[in-house]
């Protein structure tokens, strides 16, 4: 079991389905990493500049492993770069929480806590995946994500249990972003197929663990758990908010303007 293990073996799951599922994981990391990168040079302190950039680079690293694997599963000769730089918006399958704007530092931190806790619970379980490649990627990523959550939850507690203004700001951000978390756990046919095949954990199980973790963090941060509201987000199926287009425009500009450029 290693990071360059060959594709799925024991179980014969449809490769197109696996391809799309791996992109869901990879795109979540890629888009969130790209978003975090926007803070570089703009963070509240030089120490945070490096902290946020480190997390962004971890996420891009995860995306590279996952997109490379997705390309191999697809078997049409697309590598990580082709998948990252030359896919249209509707072929991106990240949950749209990842593409939501940074807002102020508090809003970035709220988004980060919600996704870090999700990735942590997901990857912890995925280390047992029957897909040895995904299990290896999860084993590497879970160590990174554990630190990401330490960092983000530390900040959320500081801000939530901080001044009146910092509390109000993260409260507003939490209310704003909470509805998007529903999509992370909304199980569709693809999620079900992956869970049935032993490739991915059951999302309901991930959600229970995630909720426990989030509740504990929010309590410490003196923040109230928002109420669930109906949602109509389908980023995991390629239907995105208006924000993703801008992210991709910036991220893909160079490869589209100068195809196959290298340096």
């Amino acid at each position, binding site marked *: 079991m290693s990071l360059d293990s060959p594709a799925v073996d024991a179980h014969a799951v449809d490769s197109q389905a696996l391809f799309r599922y791996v992109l869901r994981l990879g795109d979540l990391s890629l888009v969130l990493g790209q978003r975090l990168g926007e803070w570089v040079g703009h963070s509240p*302190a030089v*120490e945070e500049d*490096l*902290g946020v950039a*480190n997390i962004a680079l971890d996420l891009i690293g995860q995306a590279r492993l996952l997109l490379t694997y997705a390309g191999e599963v697809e078997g049409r000769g697309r590598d990580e770069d082709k998948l990252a730089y030359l896919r249209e918006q509707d072929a991106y399958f990240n949950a749209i929480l990842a593409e939501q704007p940074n807002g102020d530092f508090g809003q970035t931190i709220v988004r980060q806590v919600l996704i870090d806790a999700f990735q942590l619970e997901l990857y912890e379980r995925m280390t047992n995946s029957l897909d040895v490649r995904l299990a290896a990627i999860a084993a590497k990523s879970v160590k990174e994500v554990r*630190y990401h959550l330490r*960092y983000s939850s*530390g900040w959320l507690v*500081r801000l939530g249990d901080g001044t009146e203004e910092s509390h109000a700001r993260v409260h507003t951000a939490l209310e704003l972003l909470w509805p998007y978390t529903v999509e992370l756990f909304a199980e569709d046919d693809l999620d079900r197929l992956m869970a049935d095949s032993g490739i991915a954990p059951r999302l309901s199980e991930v959600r229970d663990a995630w909720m426990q973790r989030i509740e504990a963090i929010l309590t410490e941060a003196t923040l109230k758990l928002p109420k669930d509201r109906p949602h109509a987000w389908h980023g995991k199926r390629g239907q995105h908010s208006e924000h993703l287009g801008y992210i991709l425009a910036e991220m893909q500009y160079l490869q589209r303007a100068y195809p196959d450029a290298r340096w």
Partner: protein
Amino acid sequence: MEDKRQWPLYEVFIRARGGLDHKHVGSLHAADARMAIDHARDLYTRRQEGVSIWVVPSKAIVASDPTETDSLFEPARDKIYRHPTFYEIPDEVKTL
């Protein structure tokens, strides 16, 4: 009174690997000790520089007075017999 607009300063010490001493590597600003550890991890161990971090509030460090340099350090200058340079070291001794 402490200036609340600026995070206090911490000194950072990193142990490169088991068995070695923690070495001073620099300083950083942080709101408290936990944040100082996080910042030290992010600033000073990005290239696998260490396996352990110490952070110490800079204000907890007591330094010698530069104006006393003469009286503190000069007297040791002519006592070369304190340097163990007169011993023959056997070839078998690799680490000393």
